């Protein structure tokens, strides 16, 4: 058993010029586990894992065979503390395996059922999610995680129903989305994953499914804390411009705020493992003070909720100090600068790919060139590599690039899906930003 402790650290330049009203701060939250004999309240919660597999007609052939194999392996990897279920998705969501403990017998029976899966019918994702939510209500105390696999676009008539179901599912379970092949829509899956605090990725070839599922399962099995909320207090005259997770991936949480009082609100962060680290970027607009004034512009705390009991597990303060010393107020904290750079990198990629879709190659080249420059400057090698599949880089430092002529659709989709993955500040090269 492990007992998890959390720490929070704020990076910011609190100094503002006269009349300055925008405060930026990065909060790094780190969890660390320690093995204990008699775990306290923050010990491991049970895990309920849902596999949601598209079995519409387009999945036939190699895809459905790979999906069977990948789900079989995923189930075999489930830890003993877990339970699981399997939903088959087509025109409706069918429960193939209802919630079952991950015992040897439970796994064997589920795997036998999975062998019988065949592909036919349409794609109505709202019904798949609704069926999953039904299963998750069976274990309300469990860490609720799901993996949704699809290869196509959602039925256009399902738009309103999907939006409604997503609202109902928000906060009930987390859902990672995977698109196999290139017939699916990045924005569509990202919208689902973002609403349900999960990741999105492309599986270009069915053969890569097994490894991807293993990675997701491994990650889910490490989650030990069911739910943590990020509670942000601000003074009465302060406005939250935005609150984003900025590492390991950009997730805008601003609209997910649940207001508690006019001065405090909760942002969901989902489940946590006992060994991970995430960064959050707060941008607050404060009422300008006089030179020499100090203000507590925000106080961010992490609140864990277990059996309805809230426990504050870490806290950090965001300050504002007004000064007439320009040397102090014009400095930008390196962590803030890095987060801003990574956000611009993601935006540049998004805008560059959209311009390319529209056939505006000049704008596409300019935006993707800027992205190459930002990826290089921040040391985001993973994104730089994806960019090189789309553009030929002449000079990364200046962002001079040429659009490639023949771009594989999977490469463009991979870049679009992974553009929000960020690189943390590189501490080995201090003072560089």
């Amino acid at each position, binding site marked *: 058993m492990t007992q998890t402790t959390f*720490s929070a650290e704020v990076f910011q330049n609190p100094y503002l010029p006269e009349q300055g009203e925008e405060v930026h701060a990065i909060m790094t939250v780190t969890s660390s586990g320690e093995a204990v004999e008699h775990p306290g309240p923050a010990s491991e919660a049970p895990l309920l894992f849902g596999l949601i597999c598209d079995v519409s007609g387009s999945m036939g052939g190699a895809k459905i065979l790979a999906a069977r194999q990948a789900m079989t392996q995923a189930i075999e990897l489930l830890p003993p503390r877990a339970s699981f279920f399997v939903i088959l998705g087509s025109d409706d969501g069918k429960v193939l395996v209802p919630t079952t403990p991950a015992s040897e017998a439970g796994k064997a029976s589920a795997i036998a059922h999975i062998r019988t899966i065949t592909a036919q019918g349409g794609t109505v994702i709202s019904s798949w999610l609704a069926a999953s939510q039904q299963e998750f209500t069976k274990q309300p105390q469990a860490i609720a995680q799901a993996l949704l696999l699809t290869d196509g676009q959602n039925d256009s008539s399902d738009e309103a129903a999907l939006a409604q179901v997503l609202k109902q599912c928000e906060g009930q379970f987390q859902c990672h989305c995977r698109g196999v092949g290139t017939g699916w829509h990045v924005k569509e899956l990202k919208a689902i994953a973002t609403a349900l605090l999960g990741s999105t990725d492309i599986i270009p070839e069915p053969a890569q499914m097994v490894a991807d599922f293993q990675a997701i399962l491994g990650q889910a099995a490490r989650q030990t804390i069911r739910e943590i909320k990020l509670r942000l207090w*601000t*003074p*009465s*005259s*302060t406005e939250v411009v935005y609150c984003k997770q900025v590492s390991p991936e950009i997730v805008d949480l601003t609209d997910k705020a649940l207001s508690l009082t006019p001065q405090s609100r909760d942002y969901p962060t989902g489940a946590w493992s006992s060994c991970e680290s995430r960064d959050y970027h707060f941008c607050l607009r*404060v*009422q300008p*003070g006089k030179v020499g*004034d*100090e*203000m*507590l*512009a925000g106080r961010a705390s992490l609140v864990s909720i277990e059996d309805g009991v809230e426990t504050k597990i870490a806290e950090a303060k965001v300050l*504002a100090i007004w000064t007439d010393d320009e040397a102090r107020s014009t400095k930008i904290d390196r962590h803030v600068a890095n987060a801003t750079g990574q956000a611009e990198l993601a935006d540049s990629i998004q805008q560059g790919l959209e311009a390319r879709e529209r056939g505006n190659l000049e704008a596409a080249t300019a935006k993707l060139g800027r992205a190459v420059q930002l990826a290089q400057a921040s040391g985001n090698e993973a994104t730089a590599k994806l960019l090189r599949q789309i553009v030929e880089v002449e000079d990364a430092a200046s962002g001079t690039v040429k659009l490639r002529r023949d771009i594989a659709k999977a490469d463009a989709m991979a870049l679009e899906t992974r553009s929000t993955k960020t690189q943390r500040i590189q501490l080995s090269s201090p003072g560089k930003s």
Partner: protein
Amino acid sequence: MQTLQISSDQCSHCNSGLLAGDRFCETCGTPCPSPSPTACTHCGALALDTEGFCQQCGLRSPQGDEPLQLQLSLDCAGLSDRGLQRYLNQDAIAILAWPDTQPESWGLVVCDGIGSSARAEQAAQLAAATVGESLQASLQASFQDPLQKQFQAQIMLPQTLDSLLVGCLGRSLDQAQQAVAHLAQGEANAPATTVVVAVIRDRQLAVGWLGDSRAYWLAAQGSCQLTQDHSDAAHRLTRWLGADADLHQYPPQFVCRELLDSGYVLLCSDGLWNYAPEPEQLWQILHPPEAAAAAADLDADGARDCAWAPEPDTAILTQRLIDFARSQGGHDNISAVLLRITHQSA
């Protein structure tokens, strides 16, 4: 603020002295008055957190505007002031007396919470209180121990008395170290503080310290600085109390001295000595030229024949020291504890 108030430094019930941070009188157990809630100076809300940030408008209000004043007799007083630039007073002071002992014995403490550490004010207050409590207990015991008859009879050799006092000081600093280290919550900048402590017993003075809070001997002649700062050329501290201090490798230092003349023992934080590092400068503040001239007049009139004129209340003298530092900018918290030693043989 210039007027002197003897505030909560004496028990309202039995008048015995209270230490900074005491919640109950050590002698009779009467609760000390808790500081009244202060309003935000910006929006008026009664909602300041421990660091002075308003829970309504977020702005910080200066804390501890009431300087902490301690006085146990006309000869011994301490004053700790926020200064003009800091939002908090992170210094702490304590005074101890054993009025039943003959001759009188005294304990003086000044701590300066290290600004770059977390909750420095707690570190300083806890260190001052712990050192005070430890000395109270250990010296009281030694004064009352029948085996210490020779001590009572004042036939103890000065060296033996020195080692007794230094032993008590060392134990008190060890206990303070344990207490302050306990404040740490795993943060990178654990709560930390300097400390300087003096015990005066039967003309023997023993001083122990860690950091750059100082002890001085101030007199008409022979003023000197008793401590040597534990800091490097860049004024960074090299020794302190706190979870990240290693008292085995960087132990406290001690100095002993026999007080044969009349004068003052002064303990102070760098908020004072930064503006007057030389002992002669500090003596000048206690005895400004006009006072010296007045004394000279008295001499000329033959109205007094000893070199030691009746001295003002030490509370007024500590106020003079604090006022001086404030007049120079008051950039840091300012603390001074002063004990007058009067040589009777004149």
